[in-house]
């Protein structure tokens, strides 16, 4: 098997005060060794839940109810908590959205890095600190020997995100999950962080999952894209394919809402309407209410995932018609 990660039919639910929320509905995702993929969707579409399901870090009210997750030769649903701990931070590194709150304010940056290193590598304390300083240097933090003894609040947002990246990379993971790594940052800092990630991707050769709502970032760094909506994968394509031949009406809408220099006099088009209420999700397509092509079948049944070419497909009844299903 040449896939690093294979998610099949993943279904995750949350019990909340207001009722049961089906956050993920039969998700399939696969990632090859060394590949960078993007997962794109609005907030609430289930991107982050997917990642937390992989890491088995869902909050107490969340539960994977169905599906298999195959990672680097093992099914993670079979692993004990202890075995998961040796995967987290070691084989899978994670970067979170908000660098301002993702580092523990009462420990120095160095302490938090060393903690991760020493958890997975049997290094003596001194060499672990040296390694931590090296990592800071790698992610472009000047004067690492001094900075390593400082607390997170002494770093700017961009610098903290660099620290988070250093921490995620500290044990040379097979997979790096970046959950909206630049959303909370200024635009200029965003560009620097993306530049850094591109750079590191070549240097350390890990697979990357970039979770974002920004197709532009995906085009920059990823080879494949999964588009999520309402807890479903609505389209999966190579990065070029998605820009050239989007299949799903939601993907088309997303592309229309990206500002582009060559747009000319055409106006940016937002997607009308609101994302669905995840508590009583309709039986059919989650995009129904906002879809310009909605049909009665969309109200009644979930659209099947249809592949139109190798590695490019979407879950939409329109494709079903196009492929001669009727």
């Amino acid at each position, binding site marked *: 098997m040449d896939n690093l990660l294979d998610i099949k039919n993943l279904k995750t639910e949350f019990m909340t005060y207001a009722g049961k929320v089906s956050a993920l509905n039969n998700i399939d995702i696969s990632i090859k060794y060394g590949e960078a993929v993007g997962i794109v969707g609005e907030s609430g579409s289930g991107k982050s839940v997917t990642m937390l399901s992989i890491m088995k870090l869902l909050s107490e009210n969340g539960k994977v109810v169905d599906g298999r997750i195959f990672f680097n030769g093992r099914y993670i649903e079979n692993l004990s908590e202890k075995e998961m701990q040796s995967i987290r931070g070691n084989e899978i590194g994670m970067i979170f959205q908000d660098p301002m709150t993702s580092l523990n304010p009462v420990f120095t940056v160095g302490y938090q890095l060393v903690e991760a290193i020493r958890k997975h590598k049997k290094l003596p304390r001194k060499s672990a600190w040296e390694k931590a300083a090296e990592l800071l240097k790698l992610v472009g933090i000047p004067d690492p020997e001094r900075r390593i003894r400082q607390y997170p609040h002494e770093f700017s947002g961009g610098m903290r995100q660099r620290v988070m990246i250093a921490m995620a990379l500290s044990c040379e993971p097979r997979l790096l999950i970046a959950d909206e790594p630049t959303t909370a940052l200024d635009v200029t800092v965003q560009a620097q962080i993306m530049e850094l990630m591109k750079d590191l991707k070549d240097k350390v050769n890990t697979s990357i999952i970039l979770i974002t709502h920004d197709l532009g970032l995906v085009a920059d760094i990823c080879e494949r894209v999964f588009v999520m909506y309402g807890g479903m994968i609505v389209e999966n394509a190579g990065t070029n394919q998605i820009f050239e031949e989007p299949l799903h009406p939601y993907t088309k809408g997303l592309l229309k809402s990206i500002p582009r220099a060559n747009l000319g006099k055409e106006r940016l088009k937002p997607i009308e309407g609101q994302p669905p209420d995840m508590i009583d999700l309709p039986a059919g397509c989650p995009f129904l209410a906002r879809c310009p092509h909605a049909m*009665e079948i969309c109200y009644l049944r979930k659209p099947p995932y249809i592949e139109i070419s190798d590695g490019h497909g979407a879950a939409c009844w329109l494709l079903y018609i196009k492929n001669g299903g009727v």
Partner: protein
Amino acid sequence: MDIPGELFRPFNKEIIIKAETEKVSLTYWHDVWRRLRRNKVAMASMACIILLFLIAILGPILSPYSYSDQIRGDESQWPSWKHWMGTDPLGRDMLIRILYGARISLSIGVVATLVNLVIGVIYGGISGYFGGKLDQIMMRVIDVIYGIPLMLYVILLSVVLRPLMNELFKMPAFSFFKSAGAGLIGMYITLALSYWITTARIVRGQILSLKEQEFITAAKALGANGFRILTRHLIPNCIGPIIVTTMLLIPDAIFTESFLSFIGLGVDAPVPSWGSLASEGLGGIRSYFYMLLFPSLAISITMLVFNLFGDGLRDALDPRMRK
């Protein structure tokens, strides 16, 4: 898959739009009431509080005794059908004395809270609304007062107020209050002046954060004047936290009164207060345990239901604070 072709007709979205609008939209207060009603502990506490007020008002009217009646031959009786909670060594019925104590505790809770509420809202409102230098000064004053241990200040005030009140009662204009006793009047004044700081801080905080919000700017842009903004927009928006603080102040005031009466600083004999009743009961702890038990239970249950109701109200008014 075999799907009938007519299902591929365009979908009439009005069906779901209609379904959306048919969902009842709840107003804030409806929502609060719904959450509160679902909280069984809070509802039970509310029932207890209402019952408590009813008993305190009606009890002494229905009772055959008065709180100061000394019934000859009935001294130090254990609870019986004649005296449900027994009698004290002077032959006074304990039940009626505890019911009177309830009147005192509840009235102190209500009066102290209302006065503190008014002072706190005015102080905090002015400080938060005008901001700037005035706010700075007013907050420094609060910082300083906050540093003073509250109970010491309360004790000191009640030490001083008692002789002051007695002096005042000598004047004809104030002699009317004499029947209530210097201790009780002093207690009202002391507690009315002691708890407004929390309210003031909360009101100020709320107003400061609300001031930044857009609907205030919008109201200003529409030409609403300062007073109107304060009364029509700011105050209604602080009402939630104010209610919660107020509810939690009531048990605080009741506690302080019984504490002071227990150490001999509260109401004057023969007026009974739960604190002084418990203190009297302490003397006879070996032989007349019931004299200690009933006032203690009365204080504890009252404190408990007010606190539980306050907690429930807080959860209902601000679900984000829910833990």
